[in-house]
């Protein structure tokens, strides 16, 4: 019902194009892992290799302790939920769900019990006799999930299953997916290009780019302390400043930037060992900016980046989003989110402060 998944040195070449270049990754049994990246990054290819639809050029796939190379999709303990759901249009919802157990010669009574249980789980008991074309997008998605789980796979593969749904329904389905995954305990491997979706459902996010893994870890770790600039930018909006490493001590790293000399906690450089004179990028996210007059923290806990001119501002409901021109440049270059009660108009001036604990350093790649 659940198993560990391991990729060892998986490489995939399509003609002259390297789709994947040496992927090593382990997903623990019962984990909800999300492969996240822009289109063409190789995430779907990796999923199809795990499903057995693509034979990798190099490398090995393990599910549990079994080496899977050469095992066809039907004989793997995986099932795939396709992006377009791929429901059988000529069969009822129930027949769709029963198809897998029937193919695997599960006794009829047992198959029926499974179907009933799954129909109840995905809230479709009333729609069991309907055909797929009579269902809404969200219902089809649930049928696809129930059909995939009916063969009791160790690993469920989800290929952008929520891509076709509108925003509200997508959020609801994210919650349901997460809930069902916890209930059945099956390892879920989910592919998406939507970082918010990834954070909403994942136990672990694997950020991919150009056929490589950029970063992987828990959602908060990948968002707050990303391993690479790509990962940092992909997970959310990001402000960057060039920074040259000055002194490095056990507690502090000081860097020279256009905004002056700044002292950061040593933990700001999480994934690498900063060397004196090294070129790095100081990163901080819009919501890590502090508004003027926020005295909830002492001044020494914030990085002072100087007085900025407000170029644009807009009310976003949860926050006020401002585009700022910093003192060292005429062009607007900093995006900041301030509390919703703040009032900032274009032309106003505000001192830009950034939480010292939140800013992080990344090496120039």
């Amino acid at each position: 019902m659940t198993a560990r998944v391991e990729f060892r040195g998986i490489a995939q070449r399509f003609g002259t194009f390297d789709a994947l270049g040496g992927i090593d990754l382990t997903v623990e049994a019962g984990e909800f892992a999300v492969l996240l990246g822009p289109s063409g990054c190789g995430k779907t290819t990796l999923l199809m290799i795990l499903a057995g639809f693509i034979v990798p050029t190099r490398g090995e796939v393990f599910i549990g302790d079994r080496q899977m190379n050469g095992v066809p999709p039907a004989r793997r303990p995986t099932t795939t939920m396709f992006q377009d759901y791929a429901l059988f249009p000529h069969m009822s919802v129930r027949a769709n769900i029963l198809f897998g157990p029937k193919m695997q010669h599960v006794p009829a009574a047992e198959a029926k019990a499974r179907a009933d249980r799954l129909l109840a789980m995905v809230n479709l008991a009333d729609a069991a006799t309907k055909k797929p074309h009579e269902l809404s997008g969200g219902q089809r998605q649930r049928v696809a999930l129930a059909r995939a789980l009916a063969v009791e796979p160790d690993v469920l593969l989800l290929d952008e299953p929520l891509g076709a749904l509108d925003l509200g329904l997508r959020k609801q389905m994210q919650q349901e997916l997460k809930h069902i995954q916890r209930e059945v305990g099956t390892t879920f491997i989910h592919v998406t290009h939507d970082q918010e979706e990834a954070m909403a459902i994942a136990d672990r996010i694997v950020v991919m780019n150009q056929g490589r893994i950029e970063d992987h870890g828990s959602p908060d770790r990948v968002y707050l302390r990303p391993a690479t600039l790509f990962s940092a930018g992909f997970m959310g909006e990001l402000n960057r400043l060039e920074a040259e490493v000055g002194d490095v001590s056990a507690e502090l790293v000081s860097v020279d930037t256009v905004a002056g000399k700044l002292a950061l906690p040593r933990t700001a450089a999480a994934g690498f060992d900063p060397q004196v004179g090294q070129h790095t990028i100081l990163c901080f996210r819009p919501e890590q900016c502090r508004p003027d007059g926020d005295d909830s923290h002492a001044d020494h806990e914030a990085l002072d980046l100087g007085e900025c001119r407000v170029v644009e501002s807009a009310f976003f409901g949860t926050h006020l989003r401002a585009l700022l021109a910093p003192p060292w440049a005429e062009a607007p270059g900093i995006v900041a989110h301030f509390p919703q009660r703040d009032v900032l108009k274009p032309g106003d001036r505000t001192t830009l402060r950034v939480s010292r604990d939140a800013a992080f350093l990344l090496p120039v790649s």
Partner: protein
Amino acid sequence: MTRRALGNVGVAGYVLLLYGFIYLPVMTLVLFSFQEGRFPIPPFNGPSLRWYEAVFADGKLTAALTNSLVVALLSSALACLLGFLAAYGFARYRLPGAGPLKVMITAPLTVSYLIIGFGLLVTFNMAGISRSLWAVGIGHVVINTPLCFAIITVSLGEHQRNIERAARDLGASDWQVMWRVTAPMLLPSIVAAYFLSVTFSWDEFIIAFLLSRFDVTLPVEIWSLLRSGLNPKTNAVGSVVFLASVAVVLILEFVVFRRYSSRRAA
């Protein structure tokens, strides 16, 4: 306003002319099949069903009608099966020379039935196969397989491929995928291909004429009837042929395409 009204009248007149051009000959044929007198020429003096009675009392005509029906239903079934298998093969497997082979399988659609019939006649002669209904049936499989292939091939898209993948992923073998998923999924276009093929075979004359000897199909029987001169009986049998074709087209329209389009729209 008047210009617009004039325009509308013009359009209506054009439509009337166009449809008249297409349907007038058939309407005349059907009308004079109800003629009371012995000649299918004006003035019309009817209506009467006596010529229909004559048709169904004519043993040769009813035998030919049965022959036509049997040949159409069986040859179309075979053409459909072969067309489906070919379409499936080309769509799902990488075959050497698939491009030219695909062209060659659809090319007979553009060749005249006379040439195909003539070629078959020569070939059957050399192979020592005598002219018979069987030969006609084979001829109709030859002309209808490309048609069935073409219709079924266009409905085998990427979406269906994913559905087949899903079936395979759930444990179905290649045969199970084909018979439990692909074929039922393509049923609308398979049925459409079948019915079209039936109407083509039902109407077909040249091949049937060249390849049959004692047992003939209806168009061939009608032709020999026509040689002895016009009479309302030929109109009546022609109307029967026409109405059968219309019935098939209507079935196709209402049963198959309706269902298919509602499914598509959903």
